């Protein structure tokens, strides 16, 4: 069992607060990703879990046992560093055997485990080489192997794929996912790459400047983001945010734009209180949910630029004072400055308040919002 729990963890480096009263609950056997931009505190989080950093406040639990004061080597958690930190002076075999030697394991047990791990990671023929003579992908596997041989209760991986080229990254993503499934162990994965996070995780925690923004399954992070930051962090091209004026009437929410209007079809009660009457709010809609209509019956826009990507084309549209993006099939033929009408998928609309918090999200459901235009 390896349930990892952080409660109220704070870590400061001088004036900078790297982790800010952070609480997380990671289930046993979960592929848990911490996603955030550089400087969000992801590496500090991993280092705190493994014990290389001591929190200034808060506690860390491994299966309900507090480990905040336990020496890193005794926590039975393996950390794979971002720069791998292989021992340059030792051969691959000795790199893999190192943690086992520290645990004073008998020689043949060490040999068995090292060969096992090498087999799983396909690095058997590299055992006699030194790290300097390995390629990036091979080094990555050795670093993983060093964690694997220990059979720890949890794995912490710090951006393990960021140094690899695009092709290798794709391969390793699939391998890692399979590996974690076979091992059945808790894996905490840190990355700034949202595609990695979306494709591999059971759950994602979005981190910003040491504060957790949202913890949820990938679909919800994508379709029901808690705030604008989360909405922007996943999804490429990023979500469009259209400035609107929000009014409430009869307990229902109404977002007004000069070219369209979004109305909620249900009572919104408390959510309305979040919004200052008449204050600036934002309607969020992802580019793939903005459709260009043939019959001209829709919200009027002007084409700002077109980006043909081959498999699809991104159309940048001027809507009022803003430019929003829409994804269209590759066959579309539009020129800059052309006038086109667009429609929004009402099941995919979000409303955010001026501070960026999500007020209401259709999250794929029908009958939540209605969009009307002139």
């Amino acid at each position, binding site marked *: 069992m390896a349930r990892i729990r952080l409660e109220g963890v704070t870590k400061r480096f001088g004036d900078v607060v790297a982790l800010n009263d952070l609480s997380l609950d990671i289930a046993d056997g979960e592929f848990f990703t911490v996603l955030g931009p550089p400087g969000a505190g992801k590496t500090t989080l991993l280092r705190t879990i*493994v*014990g*290389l950093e001591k929190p200034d406040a808060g506690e860390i639990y491994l299966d309900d046992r507090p480990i905040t004061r336990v020496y*890193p*080597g*005794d926590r039975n*958690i*393996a*950390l794979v*560093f971002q*720069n791998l*930190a*292989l*021992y*340059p*002076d*030792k051969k691959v075999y000795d790199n893999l055997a*190192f*943690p086992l030697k*520290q*645990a004073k394991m008998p020689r043949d047990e060490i040999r068995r485990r090292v060969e096992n791990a090498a087999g799983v990671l396909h690095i058997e023929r590299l055992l006699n080489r030194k790290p300097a003579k390995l390629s990036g992908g091979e080094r990555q596997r050795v670093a993983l192997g*060093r964690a694997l041989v*220990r059979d720890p209760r949890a794995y912490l991986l710090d951006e393990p794929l960021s140094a690899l080229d695009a092709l290798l990254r794709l391969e390793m993503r699939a391998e890692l996912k399979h590996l974690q499934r076979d091992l059945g162990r808790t894996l905490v994965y840190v990355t700034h790459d949202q595609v990695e996070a979306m494709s591999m995780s059971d759950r994602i925690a979005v981190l910003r400047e040491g504060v957790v923004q949202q913890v949820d399954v990938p679909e919800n992070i994508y379709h029901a983001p808690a705030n604008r930051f989360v909405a922007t962090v996943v999804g490429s091209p990023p979500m469009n945010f259209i400035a609107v004026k929000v009014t409430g009437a009869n307990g229902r929410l109404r977002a007004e734009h000069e070219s369209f209007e979004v109305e909620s079809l249900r009572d919104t009660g408390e959510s309305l209180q979040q919004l200052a009457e008449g204050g600036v709010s934002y309607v969020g809609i992802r580019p793939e949910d903005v459709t260009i209509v043939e019959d001209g019956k829709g919200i009027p826009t002007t084409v700002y630029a077109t980006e043909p990507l081959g498999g699809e084309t991104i159309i940048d549209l001027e809507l009022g004072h803003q430019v929003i993006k829409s994804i269209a099939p590759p066959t579309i033929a539009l020129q800059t400055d052309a006038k086109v009408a667009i429609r929004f998928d009402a099941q995919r609309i979000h409303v955010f308040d001026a501070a960026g918090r999500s007020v209401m999200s259709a999250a794929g459901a029908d009958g939540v919002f209605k969009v009307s235009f002139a």
Partner: protein
Amino acid sequence: MEGHSTLKAFGRVTAIVLIGILFLFPLYWMITMSFKPQSEWNPIGKTIWWPQNPTLDNYKQVLGLTNQNTQFFQASSTDATQPIIHSFIAAGGGTILALVAGVLAAYGIARFRAGGKMLPFQILQLRMFPPVAIIIPLLIMLAYIHLFDTFWGLWLVYGAVTFAFVVWLMRSFFQELPREIGEAAIVDGCSQWGAFFKAVLPNVKGGLAATALFVFILNWSDFVIALVLTTDKTTTAPVFLNSLQSAAAGQEYGPQAALGLILILPPAILGLAIQRYLVRGLTFGAIKR
């Protein structure tokens, strides 16, 4: 354009040759002198550029392989074997002391920011003035604790004097090594000491070798400290070499040259032996993280 570059090349070559001669001439003179018989050391009226009757007598004298054989009155022997051994012991021990203390201090400063911002500079300051300036107080202190003319005395002083070099050099090497390597060892189950010996040190071998050699050479060639802090029991080779020109014995050019050449050997051999570590280490930690 063409004429310019040939002139420049010619000037460059001339400069190199002249500087080369300037630096290599003393070596040349010493080598030839060491093989000259006494008659050719300093004959009146002429200079002998190449030994006409080369002999190994000087070497034999210096290594104690023959009986004394000079024209001048001998106040003491010219057998340098004891002093050479003493030099090894003194320089070796001093180097070891400096390394042990310095490497640990350097790691503390590099990894754990021991002593804050000021400590590294305070340590470097130690070396900013020459030991000669405090040699008399050192003499008095050593005498007081009965360490005058002992190896322990020399070791302590040599160690102290070169400690700053070790710290300064090794600190850069430690800084160059990614800290994650030590941290990986800790995560793998090592104690701090274990991580240091098993993961960090093996990866600064080059720097360590370069530093050790550098310090050894400093201690090996020291003259003033040994001159003041020793007399007959722990005489080191440079001091002995100096004594080969006492007023009584006169200028024993030959044996001096021979001994001088012999003294170059240990550092040179040591350097060759650790050459493969040196190649990397000799950037002298100029790269800062």
